[in-house]
């Protein structure tokens, strides 16, 4: 008796489970992501529209758009925005060109790539903290390797990450070292999937290597290039670890990125309302840019 009830119950549960499987399988991931994105979003909107008192017993005061208006006049914010854009354009640009160049070269001249690929991809898998420390060692003005090379070449020694003019350049070089492999590998995967026929036809037509690259390779690679650029740009816009350890945002705020500034506003200046306002700005611009970029690349397909 109990067995049959149990079996019946088990059966109906099984049927219910099976019927709702497409929702049930999606549910855990969706619940985690919803909780951890919706709550922060609501909190940030509320925080940005208020003035949070340092005294937890006092109620929050409504501040309207005050925190957002501060963005217009806050020079540190402008510096952070400028640095972030500068870094993103030059770092991602250099990574893309170097990665594409290396991929074209290797794809053409070297057949068995696996071992080489494994070595060349190492940098991007290493902990950013370790990467930052390593470059700190290399850039060290007194005993660093880079100044030793400069000295041997008869070039003037530099303070690198500690120099107002060279700090951003130094950060970019370290980032290019770590992330060029990413571009390289994606481009290589793209090149491996190119069809042969159009190239054979082009060769018969006597098209130069340059023309073939421009008219065939680049258009074929476009989707891969778009994805690679999007992922790197999204990461570059949130740069934190490298500057936090390599330069601390200095000297003279020359490497202070928006992420670092938000961190300082929230935890050093203890101003979560303003930090929330900057965060919302960053969030909206990042999402707007990504959506625009994705749409544009789809349209181009």
């Amino acid at each position, binding site marked *: 008796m109990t067995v049959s009830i149990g079996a019946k119950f088990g059966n109906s549960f099984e049927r219910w489970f099976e019927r709702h499987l497409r929702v049930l399988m999606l549910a*855990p991931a969706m619940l985690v992501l919803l909780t*951890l994105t919706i709550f*922060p979003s609501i909190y940030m909107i509320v925080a940005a529209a208020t003035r949070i008192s340092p005294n937890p017993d006092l109620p929050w005061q409504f501040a309207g758009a005050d925190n957002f208006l501060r963005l217009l006049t806050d020079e540190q914010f402008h510096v952070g925005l400028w640095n972030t854009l500068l870094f993103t354009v030059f770092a991602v640009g250099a990574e893309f060109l170097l990665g594409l160049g290396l991929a074209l070269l290797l794809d053409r001249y070297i057949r068995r790539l696996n071992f080489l690929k494994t*070595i*060349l991809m190492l940098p991007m*898998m290493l902990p950013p903290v370790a990467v930052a*420390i390593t470059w700190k060692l290399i850039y060290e003005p007194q005993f660093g390797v880079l100044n*030793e090379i400069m000295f041997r070449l008869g070039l003037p020694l530099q303070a690198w990450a500690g120099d107002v003019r060279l700090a951003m350049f130094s950060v970019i070089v370290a980032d290019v070292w770590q992330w060029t492999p990413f571009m390289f590998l994606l481009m290589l995967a793209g090149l491996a999937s190119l069809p042969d026929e159009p190239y054979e036809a082009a060769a018969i037509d006597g098209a130069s290597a340059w023309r073939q690259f421009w008219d065939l390779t680049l258009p074929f690679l476009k989707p891969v290039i778009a994805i690679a650029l999007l992922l790197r740009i999204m990461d570059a816009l949130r740069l934190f670890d490298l500057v936090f350890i390599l330069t601390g945002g200095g000297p003279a705020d020359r490497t202070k990125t928006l992420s670092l500034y938000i961190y300082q506003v929230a935890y050093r200046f203890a101003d979560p309302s303003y930090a929330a306002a900057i965060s919302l700005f960053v969030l909206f611009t990042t999402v707007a840019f990504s959506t625009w970029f994705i749409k544009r690349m789809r349209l181009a397909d």
Partner: protein
Amino acid sequence: MAHRRKSIGIQRIAAYATIAVALVVTLFPVYWIAANSFKYDIDIFSIPPQWVPANPTSKHYHAAFVERPFLIYALNSLIIAVSTTLVSVVFGSLAGYALARFQYPGRWRYQISFWILSTRMMPPIVTIIPLYIAFNHLGMLNTKPAVIIAYTAFNLPFATWMMKSYFQDLPVELEEAAMVDGDTRWGAFLHVALPLARPGLAATAIFCLIISWNEFLLALILTLTERSQTLPIGIAGRVTQYNTYWGEISAAGFTACIPIMLFAFVVQKHLVRGISFGAVKG
């Protein structure tokens, strides 16, 4: 003709030379942190630099892992990375399979996939302040579960997309055959699709491990005590305003790199797919 072959030969040599340079540039920094971790302080500071440690010593490893709590940091990193990976891979395969195989009304499948990806577009610094405040209210700051929850949120989009891409590559006929033989959909997932997607599971797991092991910003904000901090935070803590403990951070930094270098060889084949969320087949 002979002339043409010669010019190709020169190009080939130029290609090999470029690759050699790329290899040296790639490997030198990794070698350098390793070399410095085995040098006495005086040799780290020597001018000109000592290219190969003349008197190798394990002093800094002793200082970091015996005298200072880097062993605890490493253990914390390990526990957090493994737990995050488990949760992310389980939830990610479930959702990835659903998005790869099931029909949803209207454009919901596309909308949900895109929404999951878009959560990854949120810069961590943006979400971390509210999370910090929430965990503070719950009394969960400086605990591993708080870090694991935050990391899971950041790993899930990636795990879901990657598993979705692997499931989409499997021929649907095998699952259909199992269902014709009387298996349920869930059974087909469990007994047919999941075992076939094993390489994808392994690759996704290793990627989650690497991302969690390397993560810095979230751990920096969520943990302040020695007992809860991870390896990257411990390393950063030895770069102070007044002094940088080069030997110690090199030893700890190189240690943090070792498991990653081992993993790199394992996931090599899946790398491209992993880093591009499955968007580009490796």
